[in-house]
């Protein structure tokens, strides 16, 4: 069964460093998402991406965050200058071609620890 994959599974970085989290969505999906879950809290929407553009972003997704689909398979989330409060589990998801009615498939997540 096709699945969403994410690398790395765990990333440790120093405050102020840049990190790139990588995701490979399901191959025929068209809509891509990032969510995050701070330890012990709910899963929060960060950004949705379609046709090489951000379609919606939350207030969490400030100028320190960016997303990119650099080739036909990868979908990345970059945090330019990490802060302690960026420590969280980051989930990638994808769906489509019926974006609204199709369920989103989630990857296993990347645990980001900022020291």
């Amino acid at each position: 069964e096709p699945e969403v994959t994410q690398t790395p599974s765990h990333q440790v970085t120093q405050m102020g460093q840049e990190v790139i989290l990588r995701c490979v969505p399901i191959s025929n999906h068209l809509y891509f998402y990032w969510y995050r879950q701070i330890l012990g809290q709910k899963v929060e929407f960060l950004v949705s991406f379609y046709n090489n553009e951000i379609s919606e972003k939350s207030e969490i997704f400030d100028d320190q965050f960016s997303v990119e689909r650099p080739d036909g398979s990868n979908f990345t989330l970059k945090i330019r200058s990490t802060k302690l409060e960026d420590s969280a589990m980051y989930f990638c998801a994808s769906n489509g071609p019926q974006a609204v009615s199709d369920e989103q498939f989630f990857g296993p997540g990347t645990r980001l620890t900022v020291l």
Partner: protein
Amino acid sequence: AQSVTQPDIHITVSEGASLELRCNYSYGATPYLFWYVQSPGQGLQLLLKYFSGDTLVQGIKGFEAEFKRSQSSFNLRKPSVHWSDAAEYFCAVGARASYGNKLVFGAGTILRVKS
């Protein structure tokens, strides 16, 4: 704005007992509703979804949920709980974006199963 409320943070049931996890949502249009399960250190797995039609939906692992528009609820049920059901359960509503959609999650309910 869309929101999801899961009033129970923790629930403990005996193995073999029935289970009901509560979920209330707020959304102006016809909602798309989901239940996801998350085991410790794992990603999110879809249990079931409601888009339209029959308000009682069946999911995986013997779970079902009933959509009640008049009560803005989408409660998850299982007639007989197994020890392997111990996990955190998230209710979510799908909110339409310009392209794609986003999921708005509740805070989650942690299920403990005692033998």
